[in-house]
């Protein structure tokens, strides 16, 4: 019996249209690519702002509020709690001459962001947090020339530099290494 040999035709997919799309996708995705990982720090507005504030549910205050305030000055930090600056002269609420936490790098220019003693500030925040565990608000103010990077590092130190608040956004509780993570930026210091 004669057997007819049938050669199977090799089907070659036409990849050129797909390649065209792929090559168009690459620059489009490159344009939208996140080269640096961005994040945000939520801050409350300056107190002198006149915009309507968000209505907050009334909270039962069991303990006296801490009213922690940190002033970033050119010569260091002035930390005060409940209106009393720590390290001020006896009988004075604040002392403009002596900072609570002096500079880590005395004489360094303002653009040297490591001139402040962030470790000491973080230790101070930890100390206050242990005394007022339910407090999370800190008011931060600075002198006019203080650079934004120093302000951000100060916020990091007050929040806790190992604190990961990203988990809170996912519905998890606030980690124990987070101290004062709700900064209120206030103008007019110094």
């Amino acid at each position, binding site marked *: 019996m004669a057997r007819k040999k049938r050669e199977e035709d090799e089907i*070659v997919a036409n*990849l*050129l249209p*797909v*390649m065209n799309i*792929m*090559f168009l*996708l*690459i620059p489009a*995705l*490159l344009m*939208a*690519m*996140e080269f*640096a*990982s*961005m*994040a*945000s*720090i*939520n*801050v*409350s*507005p*300056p107190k*002198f*702002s*006149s*915009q*309507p*504030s*968000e209505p907050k549910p009334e909270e039962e205050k069991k303990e006296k509020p801490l009213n922690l305030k940190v002033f*970033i000055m050119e010569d260091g930090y002035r930390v005060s709690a409940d209106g009393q600056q720590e390290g001020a002269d006896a009988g004075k609420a604040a002392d403009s001459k002596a900072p609570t936490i002096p500079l880590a790098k005395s004489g360094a220019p303002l*653009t040297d*962001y490591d001139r402040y003693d962030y470790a000491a500030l973080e230790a101070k925040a930890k100390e206050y947090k242990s005394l007022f565990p339910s407090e999370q608000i800190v008011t931060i103010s*600075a*002198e*006019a*020339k*203080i*650079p*934004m*990077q120093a*302000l*951000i*590092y100060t*916020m*990091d130190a007050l*929040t806790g*530099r*190992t*604190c*990961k*608040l*990203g988990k*809170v*956004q996912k519905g998890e509780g606030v980690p124990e290494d987070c101290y004062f993570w709700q900064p209120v*930026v206030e*103008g*007019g210091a110094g």
Partner: protein
Amino acid sequence: MTPDQAAFLAKKKEKAAIRRAKPEDKGELGLTSLMDIVSIIVVYLLKSYASDPVIISPTAGQKIPLSTADSSMQEGIPIFVTQRGITFGDKKVVAMTAEGDIEDSAVTNHLIGPLYDAMAEEVDKAKTLGENIGKPWEGRAILVGDQDLKFSVLVDVMYTAGRAEFSQYSFCIIRKG
């Protein structure tokens, strides 16, 4: 020429004629390996695609502050504040002095006039859009600052945003480490 030689040459000519008559094979490019590479690149880029609701593209020469914070970016309207000027909605609204301060003519009691006008216009648009789509306007301003930005400028920008009915603020930072 011997008959053998003549036969040989005739055979050679015949073979050459057959070869010439054959249709030429079409040259094909091997695209499969290229496809593999391109597919891998596309998948990688898709994974790196910015999934934040707001894509921040810093302006030229802007150094966004570094931080250990890791909270993801929330939806809002970005305000780019650099040592050179303030940009809002892709338009430079205020120029800075050489010292990095806002020009005196643009500020009155912390209120930056040109920025306020631009923001108020944007707020009106956002509110109308929010009403049309049934989503209330949140009023969040994302401050994309510069490492060397002075605190006084920052406060003025925040105050102006507050006057333009922005009630929530975020500082844009680059995650450290």
